């Protein structure tokens, strides 16, 4: 009887319970898988979001790294003795229908102690000077503008001339270089400081061609600027220190006295250089930029701009 009960009752119970258990296991397994896939999907979504955030952060950090590199190059500009340096960002280039001159707009102005004719330099050399001011913005006249004229001296042969812009993306011209004056192609042109606006010895351009045209009493000299205006983002502003040597005095309005202020009063576009000579840098070194890094020549990375009339 015991065996019969085992063969019947137990077997029956097994057949009754087993399919239910199988079904329960299947359902449970299906549910587990479903929950697992839901979790997997959620995890996937979460990972995708994290990846997107990380990509954004990476792009931001790359941008900051590039900015830090540019700012570090700006910091290599060593202000000459008696001058201070402050950085500024370029907000815009020429703006509006009345923007006839080659200019850029900076995010600093009168409140930062700037004056008309404040020199503006980049990592490689002179960019221009302040043309117009507002409390927190300034317009810079670029050296490449046809109305910009800067007295320059060649760094090696000390030949003097007037560097004149010819417009955006065009080579500049060095005027009034005597026929016998020595000047070499590739020679760096630096500010002579005669106009009392720029400190003496700042690099401005590089000579690309020296020649003679027609019966002129002067040589025909072309030079290329040391910056690309379209790629400029940050610049350095140079200001003369006060007698105490604690930076420019913003309380002194331009034209309130002194030769520098007289220079600041001059029209920054059409001024003519004065004959007063600025004393040389007592340190004996050319002020302005740090020596170029090995293998890096100022302005050498730029494409050669075309000449006016070509």
């Amino acid at each position, binding site marked *: 009887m015991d065996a019969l009960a085992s063969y019947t009752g137990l077997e029956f119970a097994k057949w009754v319970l087993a399919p239910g258990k199988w079904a329960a296991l299947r359902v449970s397994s299906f549910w587990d898988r479903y929950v697992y896939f839901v979790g997997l999907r959620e995890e996937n979504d979460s990972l995708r979001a994290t990846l997107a955030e990380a990509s954004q952060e990476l792009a931001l950090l790359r941008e900051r790294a590039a900015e830090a590199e540019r700012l570090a190059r700006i910091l290599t500009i060593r202000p000459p003795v008696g001058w201070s340096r402050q950085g500024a960002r370029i907000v*815009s280039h020429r*703006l509006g*229908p*009345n923007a006839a001159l080659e200019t850029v*707009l900076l995010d600093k102005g009168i409140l930062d102690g700037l004056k008309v004719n404040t020199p503006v330099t980049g990592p490689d050399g002179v960019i221009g000077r302040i043309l117009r001011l507002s409390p927190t913005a300034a*317009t810079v006249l670029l050296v490449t503008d*046809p109305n910009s004229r800067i007295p320059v001296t060649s760094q090696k042969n000390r030949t003097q001339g007037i560097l004149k812009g010819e417009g*955006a993306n065009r080579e500049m011209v060095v005027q009034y270089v005597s026929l016998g004056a020595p000047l070499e192609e590739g020679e760096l042109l630096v500010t002579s400081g005669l106009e009392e606006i720029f400190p003496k010895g700042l690099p401005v351009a590089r000579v690309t061609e020296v020649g003679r045209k027609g019966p002129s009493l002067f040589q025909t000299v072309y030079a290329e600027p040391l910056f690309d205006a379209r790629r400029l983002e940050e610049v350095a502003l140079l200001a003369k220190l006060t007698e105490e040597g604690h930076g420019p005095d913003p309380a002194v309005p331009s034209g309130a006295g002194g030769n520098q202020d007289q220079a600041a009063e001059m029209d920054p576009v*059409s001024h003519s250089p004065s004959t007063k000579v600025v004393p040389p840098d007592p340190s004996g070194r050319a002020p302005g930029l740090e020596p170029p890094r090995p293998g890096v020549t100022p302005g050498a990375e730029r494409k050669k701009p075309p000449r006016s009339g070509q």
Partner: protein
Amino acid sequence: MNVSAIVFWSLFTLTGIWLQGLIPGVDFLAPGLILCLQEEKWTVSAWLGLAWLFIQEGTGSLAFGTGLLWYGALVGLYYFGHWLFEAKNFLFMFILGLCLGVLHLILSHMMAVLQDWTLPADRILVEGLLQALIFPVEWGLVYLIYNHLPDNPHAV
């Protein structure tokens, strides 16, 4: 002036300044002045025109007065022209754009001579052409947007 018009003109001014930064030498606010003369009270046009005049004079490098001549001539041409043409006609706007393009050449050259400056003629010519092309297109665009404003009684 209702709220949506204030928002419209504020956004128009901001966008115009941004576009002027992108395409130098072109006035993106001038079509707005014409639209304002067509759609708003004269006091609104006067205030907006004054604000835009200061923006153009402040951002420009030519001597003060160029913007005054520029907008003065534009308003004069508009009032003269709308006697001859339908004021909201695209052809009229196209002619006005051409006149502005030529005016850009004349004004730039005149102010450069007066200030003893040298300006690259090819660049001024390109700017004049761009001004002539952009003016009617922009006017048409802002005209459509303005007439789709929710509070506009003439809303399409």
